[in-house]
C-alpha cells in the first residue's frame, strides 16, 4: 500500500518538476495565475528548498490532506469531493450491473460450451474489449441522442445536484448511455473470465464426485462449481475497476460527465499541475481501496489463501 502511494507520489512529483519546478511548468503551459495564487503555490511546494526536501515536504502536505491550490485559485481538495462522487456513481453502478449480468451469462456460456449461444456470447464479448470504450459511447450518442433524440448526450449536472429534487428523472436519463457503455465493456471481461474459470472448474474431479453423489445440478453449479471459480474473478474485479477508472477520462469527456476523469483532462491540457497531481493521488487511493477490498473478499472465498 505505502509503496504504491509513494510510487505514484514520486512519479507525479517528477513530472511536475520536469521543467525544474511546477511553477515554471505552469508558466510554460501559458497559464498566468494571479500573484496571490503564485505566492501560495510557492509556499505549498516549498520552492526555496532543495529537491529532495521539496518531495518530502510535499508528501507531508499530502498526508495532511493539503492538495494545494489550482491555478484558478480554488483549493484542489475542495473540488475533488464532488468530482469523486460523480465518478464513483458511474463506476459503481456499471460495476454492479456488469457483475450481476456477467456472472450468470458466463456460467451459462460455460455450461453450454460449443453451442451456438456460447459462440454468440463469446463473440459479443470479444468485440466488447476490442473497442475503445469512448468510441462506443460516441456511436451510441450519435444513434440515440442525435438521430433518435431519445437520450441526452451531455449536460449532466453531476451527483451533487441530485438531491435538489426535481431532476432525478433527468439525472437518470443522463446516466443511461454512459452506464450502458461502461457496463458493456466491463461485462466483456467478466463474462470471458467467468466462462474460462467455470470451464476449468467443471472439468475437475470434485464436480464429477458431487454429481456422483446425487447433488442437484443447481447445487453443483452454484454452490460447488461457482464457489471455486469465483475467486480469481474477484481479484480481476479489483484490476478491472482500476482499468475502468483509468478509462474515466475518455468516457467522461465523451459524455461531459463532470467527474474526476473529465476534470483531469481539462487540468492536464491546461497544465494545472496542482490539480493534476491531486486528482492522480485521489484516484490512486480509490484503486488501492478497491484492491484491498478484493483481497479481503478473496480470502473469504478461498480458504487456502487465509493466513493460518
Amino acid at each position, binding site marked *: 500500500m505505502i509503496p504504491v502511494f509513494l510510487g505514484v507520489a514520486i512519479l507525479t512529483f517528477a513530472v511536475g518538476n520536469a521543467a525544474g519546478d511546477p511553477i515554471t511548468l505552469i508558466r510554460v503551459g501559458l497559464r498566468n495565475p494571479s500573484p496571490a495564487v503564485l505566492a501560495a503555490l510557492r509556499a505549498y511546494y516549498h520552492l526555496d528548498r532543495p529537491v529532495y526536501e521539496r518531495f518530502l515536504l510535499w508528501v507531508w502536505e499530502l498526508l495532511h490532506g493539503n492538495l494545494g491550490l489550482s491555478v484558478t485559485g480554488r483549493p484542489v481538495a475542495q473540488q475533488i469531493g464532488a468530482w469523486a462522487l460523480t465518478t464513483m456513481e458511474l463506476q459503481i453502478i456499471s460495476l454492479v450491473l456488469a457483475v450481476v449480468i456477467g456472472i450468470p451469462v458466463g456460467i451459462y456460456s460455460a455450461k453450454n*460450451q*460449443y453451442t451456438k449461444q456460447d459462440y454468440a456470447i463469446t463473440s459479443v464479448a470479444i468485440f466488447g474489449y476490442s473497442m475503445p470504450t469512448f468510441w462506443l459511447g460516441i456511436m451510441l450518442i450519435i444513434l440515440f441522442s442525435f438521430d433518435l433524440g431519445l437520450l441526452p448526450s451531455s449536460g449532466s449536472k453531476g451527483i451533487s445536484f441530485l438531491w435538489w429534487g426535481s431532476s432525478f428523472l433527468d439525472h437518470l436519463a443522463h446516466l443511461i448511455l454512459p452506464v450502458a457503455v461502461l457496463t458493456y465493456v466491463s461485462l466483456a471481461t467478466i463474462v470471458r473470465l467467468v466462462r474460462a474459470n467455470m470451464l476449468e472448474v*467443471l*472439468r*475437475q*474431479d*470434485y464436480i*464429477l*464426485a*458431487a*454429481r*456422483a*453423489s*446425487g*447433488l*442437484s*445440478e443447481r*447445487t453443483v453449479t452454484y454452490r*460447488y462449481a461457482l*464457489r*471455486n471459480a469465483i475467486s480469481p474473478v474477484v481479484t480481476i474485479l479489483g484490476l478491472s475497476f482500476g482499468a475502468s477508472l483509468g478509462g474515466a477520462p475518455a468516457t467522461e469527456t465523451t459524455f461531459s460527465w463532470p467527474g474526476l476523469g473529465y476534470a483531469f483532462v481539462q487540468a492536464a491540457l491546461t497544465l494545472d499541475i496542482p490539480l493534476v497531481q491531486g486528482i492522480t493521488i485521489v484516484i490512486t487511493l480509490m484503486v488501492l481501496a478497491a484492491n484491498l477490498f478484493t483481497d479481503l473478499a478473496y480470502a473469504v*472465498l*478461498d*480458504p*487456502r489463501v487465509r493466513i493460518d
Partner: protein
Amino acid sequence: MTEKLLEITDLRTYFFTEAGVVRAVDGISVDVKSGETIGLVGESGSGKSVTAQSALRIVPRPGRIVDGSIKFEGEDLLAKSEDEMRKYRGPKMAVVFQDPTTSLNPVYTVEKQLTDILMLHKDLTKQDARKSALSLLERVKISEPEKRLRAYPHELSGGMKQRIAIARALSCEPRLLFADEPTTNLDVTIQAQVLDLLKQLQKELGMTMVMITHDMGIIADMTERVTVLYAGKVMEVADTKSVFTDPKHPYTEALLKAVPSVAQTRTLEVIPGNIPNLIEPPAGCVFHPRCKYAKEICMKEVPKLEKAVEGHYVACHRWRELKLEGR
C-alpha cells in the same frame, strides 16, 4: 442364483470433440452379481472409468451414451429421468475416485461435503447429519474425527483424504461401489491400508464392488471375477484365478508379464507400442498392432466375445491355437 445387480450390455459411450469422435467405450458388456467383487482392468484409455461414469450417467460433456443398455436391480437406467437418476447416485451406486486431492472440493470443510449429501438423501437435520458424518469418519478409521470434520481438504494428508472420499461414497449405504483406481495416487504404505479398509467395509456392509485398476496385483488381492478391457472393448472375462493361471487373450498375458514379482528371474516384458487412437481405432482386432501373435485375420475382422469354458470368455481369433503363459 444370486441376482445380477448391474447388467451392462453392449455399451457405447462416445465423446464428440473438435478433433473427432472419441470411442471411449465401444461395445462393453459387464455383469455384476450381488455381493461379488469384480475387477475392470486395463491401461489408461481402456474405457474403464467411462464405463463407471456411464452407469451413473454422469459422463461429462462432450461425452454421451450412444447405444447399449444399463440395468440396475433389473431397472433400465437409460430410461430414467435425471431426477430419478439422482436418487440412485449415492443410495444405490457410488464412486470413489482416484485422486483425493482433486475429488474433494477445496473450498468446503469435510463436514459440509459430507452433510450436504446426508441431508439430501436421508432427509436429516443438520445436527443429525453431523452425527452421521462423525460416525462415518470413525468407520473409515480416521483419528480425531471431530477435528477432521472441521478441516479443509488441503489441511489433510493423502491417505486421510482418500478415507474421507470413501466415507463420502459410503455415506448413503450404496449397494454398489465403483472404486476407480483408489490407491494409485497414494504412497505404497498407505495403499495396503486403504485396500484393507475397502475389503473390511465391503464385508460389513454387504456391498458389491467394482474395482477399476491397471494393477494386476490389486486384481489378485481383491477380486473374484475380472473383465479385461482394451481401447473401449472387452478382451477377456473370467474368474480371477483363471485369468492368472490360464489367460486366453494375448493382452491379458502381456499384462501379467508386465507385473514384476520377487521370485522373478526373467526380464520384464514391456508391451510395445502405444494405446491406440480412439478416434480412429485400428481395423479388425483393436489390439492387433501390439499383439505378437497377430495374423492376417486379426487385421481385418473384429473378434467376437466367445465362450471358451464355462464362465470364461475371450475375444480373440486365435484363442484356440495359442498356448499362453499364466502365473
